[in-house]
Each structure stands twice: as structure tokens, then as C-alpha cells.
């Protein structure tokens, strides 16, 4: 029997004086926290600060010892836990795709338990795969281990959205990915976030990620919430040393004119370098094996541009080489000034540049990343 929808939209999720203890160890202490409807609230803090415990108390994977948690003013302890969880999307760092199920079965598991028909499930899976920029035809019937880390993480998100839950809990969803892939997925997620327009609680330990994605950021330390506010509030009015350390408030004083491209780039290895003569199909295969989703294309060792996994997968059924589909990329020297590099990027309307050092590609230069670090 289909589970009833508990709420169509979230007005607020409220934690009041919530405490969780494991023996002597206090995981969360007298926490007061409000997640407002429609916002993306980040919880950040060192490991062991209680952020994951907080998140898992909301879907009752952990039950508080003291205090009350309400969603739209209903105490969550009054709901059946299974029903509550089916109304809340859940994404975790390790993704947790079931290895014995295809992508369709993974995404469709809860809908199936809810009694959806096969056709309804397939339609929903297709829609969600499109939504996370994976082509349904090439992915629906594959198994998780045939996918790269980035693709798996996208599936993890699609699966969490299967029942169209009004509330999403995301526990370090990009934590296991390498830095460049993480940035790509963050950018994508930022776009998706607007479209899905739902309430999200997001746990991370990466302050750049917090600034990039969060509407508000809550800083936790030693089982307590230290300060909560918008990124600007935290940077301009940090409550104490700890907060200013975490948000690195000093960086607003960094002098932009002393910085060079190499200070701000994300270094790349040979894994990211693909030959222009490679077919799209081989490129996808290699990306999946090496767990990258973006590659610099070299023609006779000269960089001619870049390709992204999301575009490549649409090309694998055509007989094309990277030379045919490569996107141009502006090239910088590692000693260029940040200011001039930003200007050049702005003129080109791009958000990504390639950094060369001694005739070799040495790094990638992300516009968003640079802006964030400069604040």
C-alpha cells in the first residue's frame, strides 16, 4: 500500500534542546536549530562535532535522548519511522548504491515498494536521469560498479529524489570525490538546487563547498552549534576565533594583485590529458576507469580544448573523435596575474581555463573557485 505523503512542502524543521549521548560521549548537546522551508542549510565543523548525528536524527536513524524535533510543527516521533523516511530524500558520502541492482532498480526501489507500476517507475527513472545529466538509454540497465564515482554520485542524488521528497538530507555527498570532480558536481548541483526548490540540510567539512552551496551555514564544534548565519554574516561578524578560523575570515584582506594563476589553480595530472584522435566511446571508458569527468584534449601534444563526460556520453553512439567535439578553452601561464586572467575569462564568457607551465598543462582554473577564495 502506498505510503501517505506526510507533507507537501516544508515550512520549518525545528530541533529544540536536542541531546544525544553515547555512554560518556556527548554527540550533540542541547542543540537548537531551525531549518527554514526552501533553504539549503549547511552544517559544517570538524569530524566528531555532531553534524552527521544531527542530520541522522531528522530521519530517525538516530533517536535523540532529550529534546524535540518537529517538521511543520509535528513531532517526528509521532510518525512511523518508515513512513517518515520515505518522505525524506537521503544522500550519503559512500553513495550506497546497491551493487546487485541496476541503476533503474536502484532508483526505482522505493517507488516499487510503494506499488508503482513498471511503466511509472521507468518514466520516473528516465526523468531523473535526464535531470542529473545522464542519458537514460546508456545508464538505466547498467550496474553501479560499471559507473565512475561522479556518475554514481549523480545516481545517488537521482535516487534520493525518486519519491519527490520535500526535504533532502545530504551527508557529505561530494566528500569522496577528487577536487576537480567535486567542483564540477557542486556547480551542477547549484543549478539543480534552484530547479528542485526544496528544503535541504547538507553536511560538509569543506568551507568552500559551504560557501558555494549554502543559503545559511551552521558551524558546529564539540557537539554544539556555535554560530549560524549567511556566509556574509559569518565572514564579517564571526562570533569567536573558531568561527573565524573555519570561515578563514582573514582571506577578505588578501591582496588580489599579489596573486598569480598558479596560487589559485587546481593541479591536474596526466589522467586528465586525452589525445584528440581518441573516440568518444573510448574517452568515456577511460574517464569511467580513472574517475574523471573532464579532460583536456591534446593534438600532437598541443592543448586544443576540453571535453566533459556529460557531453561525451551523448556522442558514444556516433563515430566521432574528440577532435570533432572539443570545446575551446582559454590558456593561461602559471605566472599570469589573477586579475588579468579573470578579465580574459570574463571576455570569453567562460568559467574554466587551462594553465600551462613549461609547455605542459599543469592545472585548471575555475572562475567560481577563484571568486570564492577571494570573497
Amino acid at each position, binding site marked *: 500500500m502506498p505510503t501517505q505523503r506526510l507533507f507537501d512542502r516544508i515550512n520549518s524543521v525545528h530541533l529544540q534542546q536536542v541531546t544525544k549521548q553515547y555512554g560518556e560521549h556527548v554527540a550533540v548537546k542541547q542543540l537548537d536549530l531551525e531549518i527554514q522551508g526552501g533553504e539549503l542549510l549547511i552544517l559544517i565543523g570538524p569530524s566528531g562535532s555532531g553534524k552527521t548525528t544531527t542530520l541522522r536524527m531528522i530521519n530517525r536513524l538516530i533517536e535523540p535522548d532529550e529534546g524535540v524535533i518537529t517538521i511543520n510543527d509535528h513531532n517526528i516521533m509521532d510518525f512511523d519511522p518508515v513512513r517518515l*523516511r*520515505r518522505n525524506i530524500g537521503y544522500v550519503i558520502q*559512500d553513495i*550506497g548504491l546497491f551493487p546487485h541492482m541496476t541503476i533503474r532498480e536502484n532508483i526505482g526501489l522505493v517507488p516499487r515498494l510503494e506499488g508503482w507500476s513498471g511503466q511509472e517507475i521507468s518514466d520516473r527513472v528516465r526523468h531523473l536521469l535526464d535531470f542529473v545529466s545522464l542519458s537514460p538509454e546508456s545508464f538505466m540497465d547498467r550496474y553501479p560498479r560499471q559507473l565512475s564515482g561522479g556518475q554514481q554520485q549523480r545516481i545517488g542524488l537521482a535516487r534520493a529524489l525518486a519519491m519527490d521528497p520535500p526535504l533532502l538530507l545530504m551527508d557529505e555527498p561530494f566528500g569522496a570525490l577528487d577536487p576537480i570532480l567535486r567542483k564540477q558536481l557542486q556547480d551542477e548541483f547549484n543549478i539543480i538546487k534552484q530547479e528542485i526548490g526544496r528544503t535541504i540540510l547538507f553536511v560538509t567539512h569543506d568551507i568552500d563547498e559551504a560557501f558555494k552551496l549554502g543559503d545559511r551555514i551552521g558551524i558546529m564544534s564539540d557537539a554544539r552549534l556555535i554560530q549560524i548565519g549567511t556566509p556574509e554574516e559569518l565572514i564579517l561578524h564571526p562570533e569567536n576565533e573558531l568561527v573565524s578560523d573555519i570561515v578563514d575570515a582573514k582571506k577578505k584582506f588578501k591582496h588580489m594583485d599579489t596573486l598569480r594563476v598558479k596560487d589559485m589553480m587546481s593541479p591536474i595530472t596526466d589522467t586528465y590529458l586525452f589525445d584528440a584522435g581518441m573516440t568518444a566511446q573510448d574517452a568515456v571508458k577511460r574517464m569511467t576507469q580513472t574517475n574523471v569527468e573532464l579532460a583536456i584534449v591534446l593534438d600532437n601534444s598541443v592543448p586544443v580544448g576540453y571535453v566533459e563526460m556529460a557531453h561525451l556520453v551523448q556522442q558514444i553512439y556516433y563515430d566521432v573523435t574528440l577532435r570533432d567535439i572539443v570545446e575551446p578553452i582559454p590558456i593561461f601561464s602559471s605566472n599570469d596575474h589573477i586579475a588579468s586572467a579573470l578579465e580574459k575569462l570574463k571576455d570569453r564568457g567562460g568559467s574554466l581555463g587551462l594553465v600551462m607551465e613549461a609547455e605542459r598543462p599543469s592545472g585548471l582554473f575555475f572562475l567560481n573557485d577563484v571568486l570564492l577564495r577571494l570573497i
Partner: protein
Amino acid sequence: MVIFSVITDATVEHIILAYSALFVSIVIAIPLAFASLYSTRLASIVIKFANLAQAVPSFAVVAIVVPLIGIGFTPAVIAIMLRALLPIIKNTYIGLSNIDPLFIEYAKGIGLTDWQINRYIRIPNAYPAMFAGIKFAAILANSIAILTAIIGSGGLGELVFEGLIAFNTDKILAGALPAIILAFFIDVSFSILERILTPVYLKS
């Protein structure tokens, strides 16, 4: 010369003996393995007993049944079962419990009930191990069903023992050869079944 119908009758008897013991073992072992999942005490008893019983020679198991239950077909089934039960329990338990707790936790987090976690996550992951246990148990049952002739189970073992006592090579072969062929047949048929039943994701 041994009459052909004697061999076929003995073979049928042997198959009935071995497979009814195997069937009873499966029926008992799988629920017991499941129960062990929910009780660490039961699990440790079951696994310890399984390891111990595997160390006891098959012939000793057959012999010990006689003072306890007597002789005949049923005691023979019980003797075979005692040996066949354990690989199935052990493998099923290992298959069911060897799953990454992360998957169980996540399944719970998206709203699966305990029963659904078993049905959709644990059991499919345990198939290969369960199957390996049953295959091993089938081979064991086939070989012990020869030994049990000594406690009056009938079957191919009876021909073998009679042949041995009478120095009748024809009779020994009449019992031993079908048993060897059966063993081959079990191994091959289970290997084929295994290939068919192995989940696609485990095939390379």
C-alpha cells in the same frame, strides 16, 4: 555378474536417500541461518558447532547415530543431514551477514522495513554463498549415502559393502561406479545452475 535392475534400484534408493537428506537440511538450515542473524549468541553457537562437526569424520557421524536412533532409512537420513546441514547454515549465515553494514543502514534510511531489507538487499547478496554451501552439501550427501549402507540405509553402498565382504569386484564396481557418475553429475549440474543463477553484476 550383477543384474542391471539391481543397480538401477540401488541407484534410485541412493538418490532418494541423499536428496531427501539434502532437502531436509536446506529446510532446517536456512531458517536457522536467518535466526542467527538476529541473535549473536545463536550465531556463535551455530558457527562453532558447524566448525566442530566438520572436523568429525563422516564415518563417526554415521556410527554415532546407531546407539542414539537405531538403524534403517530414517537414521541414515539423519546422519547425512547432520553433515549436510552445516555447510549450508554456515555459508548462508556468512552470505547474509557479510554485507557491508552501510547498505543496510542506507536501506533503512530510505524507508525499507526489516523484512524488505532481507528480501531486497540481504538475500540477493547472499545467493552465491548460499549456493556454494548447497553444492558442497550435495556432494557430501552423495558420498555419505554410500557409508550409511552400513547402518541399513540400502542404496549403492549396500552393493559396495556386499562386494567388499564377498571379494566380488563386479559388485563393488556396480555400487561404486554409479556413485562416482552421480558425483560428477552433481558437480556439473550444480556448476551449470550456478552459472545461470549468478547475478549479472558478479559476472565479469
